[in-house]
């Protein structure tokens, strides 16, 4: 009986932890190279893990990244904040027969799809995650 109760407690803890981890959705990356021996990368990670993981990145590396991206981070922050206000939309869609590039939002995620003869790349990132990362990088930028 006690074991059953412990198992229930353990299971509920895992469920609560999972819900907490996945509350912001997942980041999904799919890369398929069409050439022989080309790489196929498919992975998804909980979006909540990214801002947490950034705390473990050495400050020096973070500062370097911030330095390179500082010019664009406020822009990214504004764009991702604004995009959340709008319904799902295809913002940019470029097709030239062989290549297809699409930037869209779907379910609070930013989706970037690149399809061509050489490779297919599909990236889906929650807007809140991009916003968090941009804010963090902007905060770590030198001189702030």
């Amino acid at each position: 009986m006690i074991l059953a109760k412990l198992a229930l407690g353990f299971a509920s803890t895992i469920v609560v932890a999972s819900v907490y981890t996945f509350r912001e959705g997942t980041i999904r990356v799919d890369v398929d190279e069409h050439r022989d021996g080309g790489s196929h990368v498919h992975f998804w990670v909980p979006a909540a893990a990214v801002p947490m993981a950034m705390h473990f990145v050495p400050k020096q590396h973070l500062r370097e990244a911030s330095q390179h991206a500082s010019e664009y981070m406020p822009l990214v922050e504004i764009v991702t904040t604004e995009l959340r206000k709008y319904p799902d939309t295809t913002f940019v869609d470029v097709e030239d027969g062989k290549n297809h590039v699409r930037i869209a939002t779907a379910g609070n995620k930013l989706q970037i799809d690149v399809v061509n003869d050489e490779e297919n790349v599909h990236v889906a990132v929650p807007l809140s995650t991009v916003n968090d990362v941009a804010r963090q990088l902007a905060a770590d930028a030198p001189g702030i």
Partner: protein
Amino acid sequence: MNRIVRHISRSAVVAIAATALIIPVSAIAQTTPASSTSSSTSERWLHVRVTSSEDKTETVRVNVPLEMAEKVLPAINKDRLHNGKVKFNDHDFEGVDLKVLLDAVRSSKDGEYVTVQSNDADVRVAKQNGYMYVHVTEKESHGSDKHAKSSEKSKVEVKVPMKVVDALFSAGKDELDIVAALRALSAHGDTELVSVKSDDNTVRVWLDSKNISD
């Protein structure tokens, strides 16, 4: 002891039930916008569509909410664009003082200001019902000089509300205020702003309240 265990297990059951309830709610919250294909009527969207005349599969489609553009543009400070304004030099317009020209157009009555008809191109600049029109038709000559027939090579039609033009030139002498122009544009109804038809491409720039291009 038993009471404590019972209390913990009851709490765990409540937690599981709560999370089971939260998951679908949060899933719905994330997917709700997905079902919507058109935005609220107060939102104004700027659409750009470029279609290749030769290959119909070559297309560029851009859909941007004006309100977002108004907020994003001031954050871009690169080259001549600063704080939502673009700097220009006099030699960009080959010595033509655009402000003076615009003042002249604004204070004039509706009518055609420029009409040029030549073998190469027809140009028409007019002001009518609060809009400024610029139409340029480029021509192509066929046959010998005497019996030459001309056909349309490209056709450019620009229709801009005068209030937008005013807002565009509302900044300093050598600046175009893009953000002010967008703000003025958002007050207008559905409008086709630019239409270009040429041998290579068809370009359309228009404004409406839908977040999808037709």
